[in-house]
């Protein structure tokens, strides 16, 4: 992941518009015909050289999708999406392995540079021969999988990870190399017909990351995927599958950006996590898809299904998300707490500025005994932004001694925005304990004045106070990500105070 401290500065130098990642890469691309039908599903499957079972799986998802209706219960408003008016496959044209950076498509390189990926990682990502897997000096290595529109373009540090038996690759590659693992787990956490967008994704997903951590292995570095929507009129439908076998541990990071366009582009991803006995998966997201301009034109529609299954005893899945981008965010990273004493966590910061809308939260399904979950959600609304926390805590009859604690705080900046909290608590177990707290407030005038008296500008003061407000969540992010996230928060709020 390009989550380095310099990222923001690097990118700020590139463009001085509000959204710093709004550039477009002019690169040779291959598209499938526009529109969505069975032939497109077959085309994608054929393009990926998939086995028959996977094509069948996709076609079943497509058949289900055709019978489903777009969900309308979320507190987001948008015009109808024309699913036939988009490309479902776009990929940079394949080239032979370059010998050095000079031979790599310079546009692709430029993109990595703008995104702040360090040069050494750039070489590795570009697949330069002999670049090996040695990280840049003095830095913690981060293994990166870069997904450019529909396909994974490169994955770094694969060989080094393989020494520990860790599989980290594009999911399309995993289908070829490890079909038994993919087949065993794909769709077991988020079934094809789970919801409208998950069904769509199951039919047309083009790439994404695959991770398998073998028994007892502690992944020696952060794994990350960098998602980038570049091409026009394309949807992005990546699918990520992470399996942590018994006693293993992995921390995975995900980052997203897209060019500035007047049109709305659809991103409908599915992420499935499986944690076996004593395994831990930490999944962090900094979502910074293009949010649209100050008038609400353009931006990504982010309809994402993320779910983790704590199958094993004492397993743990922790979601941390910083959602600053997208015109619309619709996502509820969830945990199915099946294994006894398993733990689910959800830490979220969501910012809506200008005309952004976010309806996000989590679902915690307590099934096994003594399962525990913690939910900390911080929503910040500015401009005309609408921010909704929507969450479900369900305690089943067998989840004796289960515990949940939920804290939802909303901060309003300006009087044209909205902050909403919609928690559902369903408890069928007398020995379970559920606690929920929610507050809504604004930045107090005396806090702002105090900071300004000490020399901070109004915007810096707001940034500082907002970061304080989000601290409980930001401290859950891996160090390098946290720094980037803090700056993002401030940038996202630019122009919100005057």
């Amino acid at each position, binding site marked *: 992941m390009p989550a380095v401290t310099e990222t923001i500065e690097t990118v700020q130098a590139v463009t001085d518009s509000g959204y710093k990642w709004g550039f477009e890469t002019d690169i040779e691309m291959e598209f499938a015909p526009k529109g969505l039908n069975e032939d497109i599903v077959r085309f994608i499957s054929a393009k990926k050289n998939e086995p028959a079972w996977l094509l069948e799986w996709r076609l079943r998802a497509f058949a289900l999708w055709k019978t489903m209706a777009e969900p309308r*219960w979320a507190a987001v408003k948008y015009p109808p999406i024309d699913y036939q008016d988009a490309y479902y496959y776009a990929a940079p044209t394949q080239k032979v392995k370059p010998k050095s950076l000079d031979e790599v498509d310079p546009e692709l390189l430029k993109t990595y540079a703008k995104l702040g990926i360090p040069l050494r990682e750039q070489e590795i990502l570009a697949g330069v021969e002999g670049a090996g897997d040695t990280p840049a000096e003095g830095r913690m290595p981060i293994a990166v999988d870069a997904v450019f529109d529909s396909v994974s373009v490169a994955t770094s540090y694969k060989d080094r990870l393989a020494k520990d038996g860790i599989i980290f690759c594009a999911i399309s590659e995993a289908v070829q190399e490890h079909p038994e693992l993919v087949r065993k787990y794909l769709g077991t956490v988020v079934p094809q017909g789970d919801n409208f967008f998950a069904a769509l994704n199951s039919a047309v997903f083009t790439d994404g990351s695959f991770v398998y951590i073998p028994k007892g292995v502690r992944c020696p570095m952060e794994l990350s995927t960098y998602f980038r929507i570049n091409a026009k009129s394309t949807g992005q439908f990546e699918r990520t599958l992470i399996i942590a076998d018994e006693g293993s541990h992995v921390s995975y990071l995900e980052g997203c950006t897209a060019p500035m366009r007047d049109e709305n582009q659809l991103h409908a991803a599915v992420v499935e996590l499986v944690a076996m006995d004593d395994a831990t998966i930490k999944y962090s997201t900094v979502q910074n898809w293009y949010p649209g301009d100050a008038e609400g034109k353009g931006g990504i529609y982010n309809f994402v299904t993320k779910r983790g299954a704590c199958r094993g005893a004492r397993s743990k899945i922790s979601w941390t998300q910083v959602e600053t981008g997208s015109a619309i965010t619709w996502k509820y990273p969830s945990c199915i707490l099946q294994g006894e004493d398993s733990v689910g966590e959800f830490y979220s910061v969501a910012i809506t500025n200008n005309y952004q809308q976010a309806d996000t939260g989590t679902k915690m399904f307590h099934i096994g005994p003594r399962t525990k979950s913690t939910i900390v959600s911080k929503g910040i609304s500015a401009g005309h932004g609408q921010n909704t926390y929507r969450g479900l805590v369900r305690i089943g*009859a067998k989840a004796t001694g289960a515990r949940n604690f939920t804290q939802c705080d*909303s901060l*309003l*900046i*300006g*009087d*044209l*925005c*909205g*902050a*909403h*909290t*919609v*928690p*559902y*608590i*369903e*408890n*069928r*177990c*007398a*020995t*379970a*304990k*559920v*606690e*929920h*707290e*929610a*507050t*809504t*407030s*604004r930045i107090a005038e005396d806090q702002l004045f105090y900071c300004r008296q000490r020399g901070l500008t109004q915007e810096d003061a707001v940034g500082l106070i907002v970061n304080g407000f989000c601290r409980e969540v930001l401290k859950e992010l891996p160090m390098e990500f946290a720094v980037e996230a803090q700056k993002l928060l401030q940038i996202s709020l630019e122009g919100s105070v005057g």
Partner: protein
Amino acid sequence: MTAATQTGAAGFLARYEGLKDHLPGARKPWLNALRADAAAQFAARGFPTRRVEQWKYTDLAPLAQAGFAEPLTMVDGTIALPPALAAHRAVFVDGRFRADLSALDGLACRATGLAQQLADAEPHLGALARPDSEPLAALNTMLFEDGLFLDVPAGVDGGLLELVSVAVDPGRPFAFHPRHLLRLGAGARLTLIETAIGGGACLHNPVFEVDVAEGATLTHGRMLQEAATVFHLSTIYARIAAEGTYDNFTVAAGPRLTRNEIHAALTGPRAACHMNGAQMAAEGQHVDTTTSLDHAAPDCASRQTYKTVLAGRSRGVFQGKILVRREAQKTDGYQMNQALLLSEDAEIDSKPQLEIYADDVKCSHGATVGALDPDSLFYLRARGIPEAQAKAMLVEAFLHEAVETVTDDTLRGALTRALDAWWARQGAAA
């Protein structure tokens, strides 16, 4: 098929068709129009199903499948009334006003049966109820016969008034839909203590329209204590003007199914609303409190504390929404709902909700769900208190918190007795 044998919504609609020329006010075009509109709404929607978000956790299928006849035209014999709590009381039997059982002489304000006051009620009846969004309000509007018409003139302190509702079992399923209009003029005050008792396989479906004018204060205590065969579905619409206060305290403990639905709107600056309650359910019972608070003016305050105690195979629901509109700056809103599960077969569903469009507000809600705290229990037992008694102490303490903010001694006493009576019944059953 005759009206009497038709079930659910169709049965009620058939009954309306048969009765519409005989219902009170049948010769008043405005009321006929109101009823006809409501009937159209009810015909279109029927009883809400669990697919309707507001009814996600409360299933009216048993109601929708049953057939309900009218109450008896004439109730013979003595009606057993609860002991009087105050000098004045208005008594309703099967939803009909009974002057002979009431004691209203010397009351400082007007309190009487709505059926006789329809001319005066015209501007107010239907002013607040929303039959278009709540099907039960539509059902009520379509079929109401009577109810309390209360009018406290500006500046008058109406003192204490009891509203007693008795359901008399005719030996077959029956339904009644009283419509209560409570109006307080500017600066007026009143404490209303409502008791609902009686039994039989009945549906008691009251709708309240409560209008609190500038600076007026209405304290509304409710004890829903009908038999475990009764479906009690009440809907309250309250509008509170500037500096007015509406306080609602409800104890729901008795019916097979209780839905205590309150919609309160704070429409003038510095208005206040307190909604508190305790709902209890045991074997086979279902209790549901659903509130919505609309902060539509600046500087208003709202406070809600609801407690649920569930024993046996029972289910409890709390849904509470606080809406703060853009103009409602300086809103102070607080809501707490707590549930205590005493049995392994109980289920609680809770949905507190905040919807906020103004930035200078202080709003919070909290929810807790759990069993009796084992540490507290152990502490009491370590001090020599037997387990059963220790449990009783903790449950009582939990419940009493819901009524501790009631300032009127008579009302607090009555509410507390209702809570204790329920708990005593649980002890007897165990």
